[in-house]
Every structure is written in structure tokens, then in C-alpha cells.
């Protein structure tokens, strides 16, 4: 299982990095603030709602940031340090190497997400109305979103410098939903066949914003249709697969 071996090594290495300490500090700060506020305003539903909302946002954001930062570093770092040569000299294809790296970065994001959400659930009572199933769906969709964004990070790490990659990927992840809406609004105002075609063409870019349904968790009592969740997971998996395949193509051609 060379893929799993690469993933395991990368995962353990990621745990040793300072990025994880940042996560732990964030968790500590959140726990401290949440405890202080809950002590100060016991039973206040608005405080609970705000803390729960901030907890979800922090967990989603920190998981995505950690995954992308790790994904952006993996291949350039291995190349810069020269450690990629002994790795590829082993019975390990470049595709397996990339898959292992992707798996590790994704898992770091998933573990971060789950840890943070666990802390949120332990500290703060969920706001009412609340659906446990919707919460589960939120976590599942977010996990799918992390896979797609990590794969995009890996892909871009083979094409652009690390800092630019992080900026582009995270900028895209957090802002594309908003930018897409603005562009679509502009196109709908201009009208015409070309505008409609351009609007349709924009769907080539993945909509990772729809995999973030934290807002529904905070305001809706009923879970989303499971068929829709399944469709969105296939959508996220599809983009992750396409990005990884494109990354493999680029990596195969890459002179190391």
C-alpha cells in the first residue's frame, strides 16, 4: 500500500508542524471565550447561537486553511529538499505519490474539522431549532468540500508558486460563491444569448460554497434531502478526481 504509506508519513509530519499548534491555540482561545461567555450569560439563547455559529465558521475555515497550506507545500517542498528523488526511486508511481499526499492533507483537514466541531458540541448547546441529522449532513458535505479544495491545492502546487497557490485556492474557496453571484447578476442584467452561454460556462468552476451548509444548521429544523447530499458528494468527489487527474498529468511531465 504505497499510497497509504506516503499518506501516513505526510500526516505524521504534518502533526509535527507548527500549523497544528496554531490550530490548538485557536481551539484553546475558542474554548476560553466560549466558557467565559457561557458563564457570564448562562442560558442566553443569543449567546449560544453566536458561539455555535462562530464555532462552525472557525472549524470550517481552519480545516480548509490547514488542508490548503499543507497541500500547497507538499510537492514543492519535496522537490526543493531533494527528498522526492529517493521516494520516486522506490516502487512508487508519481500518481501514487500524489494520491498519498492528497490523502494526508485531506485527512489533516478532516481531523481538524471534526476536533473543532466536537469541541463546539461539547461546550455549546445547539441553537433551536436544531436537527442532528442536518448537522451530520453539514459535516459530511464539508468533508467532501475539503477533498475538492485539497485536490485543487495539489494541482495548483504543480503550476504556480506556493504563496500564490495558497492565495488563489483559499480566495477561490471562500469568495467564489459571492463572485459567481455578482457575475451572474451582471450577466442577467445585460441579457442575451452570449450572456446566458457565459453564465452557463461558469459552472465549469466548482461550486464549493454549496458544500458549506452551516447556515442551514443554525436556522433550519429539517434535514436536507439525502439525495441532494449524495449528489453534492458525487459532485465534490468528481472535482477532486478531475483535479487529481490533471495534477497527475502535470506531474508526469514535470522535470525533477
Amino acid at each position, binding site marked *: 500500500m504505497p499510497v497509504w504509506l506516503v499518506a501516513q508519513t505526510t500526516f505524521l509530519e504534518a502533526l509535527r508542524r507548527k500549523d497544528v499548534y496554531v490550530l490548538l491555540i485557536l481551539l484553546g482561545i475558542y474554548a476560553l471565550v466560549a466558557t467565559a461567555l457561557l458563564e457570564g450569560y448562562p442560558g442566553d439563547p443569543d449567546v449560544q447561537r453566536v458561539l455555535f*455559529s*462562530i464555532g462552525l465558521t472557525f472549524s470550517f475555515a481552519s480545516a480548509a486553511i490547514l488542508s490548503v497550506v499543507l497541500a500547497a507545500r507538499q510537492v514543492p517542498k519535496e522537490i526543493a529538499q531533494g527528498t522526492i528523488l529517493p521516494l520516486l526511486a522506490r516502487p512508487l508511481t508519481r500518481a501514487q505519490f500524489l494520491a498519498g499526499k492528497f490523502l494526508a492533507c485531506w485527512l489533516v483537514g478532516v481531523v481538524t474539522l471534526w476536533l473543532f466541531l466536537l469541541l463546539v458540541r461539547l461546550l455549546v448547546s445547539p441553537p433551536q431549532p436544531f436537527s442532528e441529522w442536518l448537522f451530520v449532513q453539514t459535516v459530511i458535505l464539508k468533508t467532501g468540500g475539503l477533498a475538492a479544495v485539497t485536490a485543487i491545492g495539489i494541482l495548483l502546487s504543480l503550476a504556480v508558486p506556493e504563496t500564490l497557490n495558497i492565495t488563489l485556492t483559499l480566495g477561490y474557496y471562500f469568495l467564489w460563491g459571492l463572485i459567481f453571484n455578482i457575475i451572474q447578476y451582471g450577466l442577467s442584467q445585460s441579457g442575451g444569448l452570449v450572456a446566458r452561454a457565459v453564465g452557463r460556462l461558469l459552472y*465549469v468552476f466548482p461550486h464549493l460554497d*454549496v458544500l458549506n451548509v452551516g447556515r442551514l444548521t443554525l436556522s433550519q429544523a429539517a434535514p436536507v434531502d439525502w439525495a441532494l447530499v449524495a449528489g453534492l458528494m458525487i459532485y465534490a468527489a468528481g472535482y477532486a478526481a478531475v483535479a487529481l487527474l490533471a495534477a*497527475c498529468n502535470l506531474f508526469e511531465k514535470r522535470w525533477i
Partner: protein
Amino acid sequence: MKNQSDITRRRWALVAVGLLILAGAGPLVVEPMAQNIRLTRTPKFERDRASAIVQAFRGLQMSLADICYAKSTEYQHSGIIYRAPCEETLDADIRADRHQTDEALGGGTSPHPSAEKSPRAAPTPASSKSTSRDHVERHQHEEPDHEHNTMIPPKEADFRGIIGHVEREVKPFSLTHAAHSKPEEALPWLRLATWINPEHEMSWVAMAFWLQRTRKGGRNPRAVEQAIELLERARALNPPQENQPFAKQGLLYMLGHLYLMEKKDYAKTIEVLEPAIKRGEADFAKLDAVQRDWLSFSFRDAVEAYRSLGQLDKAMDVAARGIVLFPDDGPLRTALRRMKNQAKGAVKPSGK
């Protein structure tokens, strides 16, 4: 080697096909979810309050719109920044406009309730006699009530002695209210404010008010139509929400007022104002002072519209309903009294 490049080509083809499939199927899975979570430009109270982050963004959105509105007032005063409590220019102008309307409708002899409430907006005897809107505006700027606390105080209120005296002599300032520049200059800021926050009622009202004034001197012959068009858009963007008081009385008042005074379209005036009045009656306890002011103006215009259509019964009914909510509203009371007299006059001859 050729075999390798074939494989690469096939892989890229696979990537392209994958992207096409995902782009084609994308709307089917994306849109149903996007409709649930998409951040709308118009705030949605119930949904927004659930998320702290959305609330923070909403705060930013509101602040940006407020900044644009404040900027428009800066443009109106040729770049002079007034402190917030001093800046009620639009309010004063609209009140003056309202007062003129009331005079024209025959209620001007009664004490003006809004003038009683707001001494700053109270017209001087000279201005109340005046028939020109410009005259009213000029007097507002000259009258002592309209002067505000300035950044550099007048001699009587200045503790700094000679330093204050020098500063006043050098006059890097004016103690009077700055003259208004052309309203066109402020319009882009107001439009920007309404674009950022389509619920910014004051910006819609101000924009329509100043826009319709650009008709003066033939600068913009379509000014009234444009103002009405804008307010119709504002009305569509600000529909009444269920379980929430309708706090956009100003929009509907201004729209109805333009139909009444500028277009003389009385039926349309009623079509706009009746729902506003009904919602206002239902939500009266929850409305703030500003919204109540707008509502009282709507009552007056609705009465006038019914009267102009010859529907005296309905006009009296609306006036009576208005008096229930605004017992001190002079123009409404006067209008009702006159309509009653008129009705009696109409009945008497037939009684004989």
C-alpha cells in the same frame, strides 16, 4: 515515447470530459442547495440572525450604505461635513415640501403637527406665506432655528477669548448653513447606497426627492418619471415581510406623493398608499417616530387623492382613521371638517 504522449493526451481528454460532465450536471445539484444558502443582497432577518458571520457582513453592508448616504449630504453642502445631529437637511426639505402641499390642499391654516414636533423645521411666518419652494428653502437656511452648533463656536459661547476671536476673524469657516449644490452631484452616492443596501429607505426617498427636483430649469425633463421608476423598483425590492412591521412607509409615501402631486394620477396614488396605510394601522404600535411621520403624510395624501376623485365618503373615512392614530394632526382634522361641511352643503339642497 509516442505511446506515452498518447496516454497523456487521453488523460487530458478525460479531464476535459470530466469537467464538461460536471459543468453540465452542476446546475442540477448546485442550484437547489444554492437557493437555500445564497446570501441575498436584501437582508433576511430570520436567516441572517442565525449566523454571527452573516450578521457581521450585514453590519458592514449597512455601514457602507450609511457612509454613502452621509457622503451624499457632504456633496450637497459643497464638501462641508456637518455633524450628525445637524444633518437633517432632507428631513427639513421634505417637511417644507409637505407643508407646501398642505397649504395647497387647504390645510395650511392649521398648526402643522410636524412643525410642532420639530422646532427646527417650523416654517417662519415669511416662509409660510411664501408660495415659492425656493423661498422656503432659502428661509430655512436663514432662520435662527436652522442654525446649529458649529465646530468653531460664536463669540458668546467661546471660552477661548482672543484665540477664538482671531479664528473667527480669519474665517476659515462659515457659521451659517452651507448653500446646497445641485442635487445631481449627490445622486450617484445615493444610488450606490441603495445598490449596496436595497433596504436603505432614506437613500431611496432622498434620491427620488432630489431627482424629481432636477426637472427645474429644464435640466431633466424626465426627472419625475425617473424618480417614480426608482421608487417602483424600491417598492418591489422592499415588499412587506410576514410577522414584521412594515417599516418602509417613507418609500410608499414618496411614491404616492409623486403620483399625486406631479402626475395627478389619483387612482395610482390610492393604489400605492392604501396598502401602506392599512399596514401602518396594523403595525402602528411597533412603528418608530419617523415611520409614524411618514404614515401621517400618507393619510393626508390619500385623503386628497380620494377627494380629487370625488369619493368624499372614502376620503372622510381615511381622514377619520388617520385622526384616530394622529389626534393632533391639524391638516387631517381641517380636511375632515371641510369635507363634512361640504357633504352637509350637498345634502341640504336635496333635503329641501
